[in-house]
């Protein structure tokens, strides 16, 4: 049996009409980013592995496809995330002293799917803001994320905010070793209370109480006020709560909530983090947040914040695509006909020319109207 049509596991085609939807989304988002002043960049699909997996992006190691470069003999990686590439461009190539706003849209590959039933090829679209350490930059990125989610037409979504800095301040003050910190972070992310109890049991009471409390701290402004009373008054903690408060106040559509145990992302995040969830999707559809050290390995430490999403998955959460429609025109070299078709196309119509002998397959053309000559004039009428 011939299996030439078979694709590798967790890899898929996007067929009509969904490919049109995805391409439309991509354009709409890039136009939105442009309107907010974000400049597109197109980093390469492959890079030396050393540069792809630098510093905090090391989490990506298992996700990265690797090949040997036939020219240099060095290991190459196919990018699993564009964010570190944008950080490299900002740190090393642009060298702007002020703020740099970059955006991108391109495929990335994951050697293993991020979650069951996720594709290994993603169409990652995102925006990054470099060079500003204040909450104002996070606010702008969050605003852009919300605008982007609305622009995609998603009906119901929620964005959950967290803050890695708060957890870092607590674990630093508690003097945790790296191992314990990682285990605690994993237990918090899973809201795994029993493991959390076990890990916190050995700590002085002030810290164990604080860590135990984190999974309970979920909600809006009231919760933040409660957190301010109940958590130890460390500078890192109050700063994190202040920043989250500013972000919450920007919530116009009542879609934001804070989850202080949410520490997700690719592991390079250092401050505010956000994750967007949409109905019908079991995992977050967009992730983002602050990552202030990403450029260090490329020679320049720059504060940074941004988000990205996978357009393939966003497209999966959208309602079915409506038929495109269009005008079916006969084939011919008649000057009137050729000009009429050109006019209709210039006016934004989709005009499909019916090649000779194709009359029997009209229904495959996705057209709802037809161009025909009536009393010497080319007129558009409904396809009957």
């Amino acid at each position, binding site marked *: 049996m011939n299996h030439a049509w078979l694709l590798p596991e967790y890899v898929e085609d996007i067929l009509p009409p969904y490919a049109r939807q995805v391409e439309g989304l991509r354009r709409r988002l890039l136009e939105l980013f442009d309107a907010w002043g974000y400049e597109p960049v197109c980093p390469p699909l492959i890079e030396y592995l050393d540069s792809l997996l630098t510093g905090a992006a090391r989490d990506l190691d298992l996700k990265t496809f690797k090949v040997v470069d036939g020219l240099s003999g060095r290991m190459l990686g196919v990018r699993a995330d564009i964010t570190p590439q944008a950080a490299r461009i900002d740190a090393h190539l642009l060298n702007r002293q002020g703020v740099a706003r970059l955006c991108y849209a391109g495929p990335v590959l994951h050697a293993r799917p991020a*979650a*069951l*039933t996720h594709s290994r090829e993603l169409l990652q679209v995102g925006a990054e803001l470099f060079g500003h350490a204040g909450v104002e930059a996070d606010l702008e990125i969050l605003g852009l994320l919300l605008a982007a989610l609305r622009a995609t037409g998603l009906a*119901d979504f*929620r964005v*959950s905010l967290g803050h890695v800095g708060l957890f870092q301040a607590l674990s630093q003050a508690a003097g945790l070793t790296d191992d314990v910190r990682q285990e605690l972070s994993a237990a918090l992310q*899973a*809201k*795994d*209370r*029993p*493991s959390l109890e076990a890990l916190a049991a050995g700590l002085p009471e002030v810290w164990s109480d604080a860590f135990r409390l984190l*999974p309970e701290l*979920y909600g809006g402004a009231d919760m933040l006020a409660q957190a301010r009373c109940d958590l130890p008054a460390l500078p890192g903690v109050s700063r994190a709560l202040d920043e989250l408060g500013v972000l919450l106040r920007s919530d116009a559509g009542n879609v934001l*909530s804070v*989850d202080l145990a949410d520490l997700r992302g690719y592991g390079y995040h250092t401050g505010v983090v956000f*994750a967007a*969830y*949409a*109905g*019908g*999707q*079991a*995992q*977050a559809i967009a992730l983002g947040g602050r990552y202030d050290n990403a450029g260090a390995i490329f020679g320049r430490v720059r504060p940074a914040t941004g988000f990205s999403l996978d357009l393939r998955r966003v497209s999966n959460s959208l309602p079915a695509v409506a038929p495109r429609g269009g005008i079916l025109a006969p084939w011919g070299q008649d000057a009137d006909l050729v000009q009429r078709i050109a006019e209709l196309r210039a006016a934004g119509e989709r005009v499909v020319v019916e090649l000779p002998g194709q009359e029997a397959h009209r229904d495959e053309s996705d057209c709802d109207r037809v161009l025909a000559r009536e009393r010497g004039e080319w007129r558009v009428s409904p396809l009957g």
Partner: protein
Amino acid sequence: MSITLALSKGRIFEETLPLLAAAGITPLENPESSRKLIIGTNRPDVRLIIVRATDVPTYVQHGAADLGVAGKDVLMEHGGEGLYQPVDLNIARCRMMVATPVGFDYEAAVRRGARLRVATKYVQTARLFFAAKGVHVDLIKLYGSMELAPLVGLADVIVDLVSTGGTLKANNLAAVEEIAQISSRLVVNQASLKLKHDVIQPIIAAFRSAAAAGQA
């Protein structure tokens, strides 16, 4: 906004009933006598689905169920990725143990540094456990009657759940090391908790207080 809760038949279902009752949820049918896989409850917005115990994390991870009750053994084997595990329900308690034939010198076998042949249903858990001990193992995946493997020379030791120890004793085996205390956990889909927080949070709270009361 409706909620789906995944449960397995048998001990876990029986012991979850009081917790469901605490959350104001009563199943309309008994899965032991009904052949239905989707069971309604007294609450129109809550339904139960009956799945194999090992499949509970998969259903919840995919969002096919919002909540589920799964043993720690199943979660350790699954990895628990993408799940919240907010409550230890303290039901279906037992222990994950290493067991050997009576008279087998486990300590010496582990010290010798050769490869130990381990028969188990819990391949992932056993791999991690022995790797942390620094022992090389050959894992033999079995689907049942693990106790037989060391008796007929298929393996040196087994890794399995032990509750009373009766089966081990009857087959002349002895538990030599504990891997983990096992009990059932409430697991929650991450997106569901964010999107249906107002409905799910009271259920979690009811389960938590009922579980704490049951333990006391």
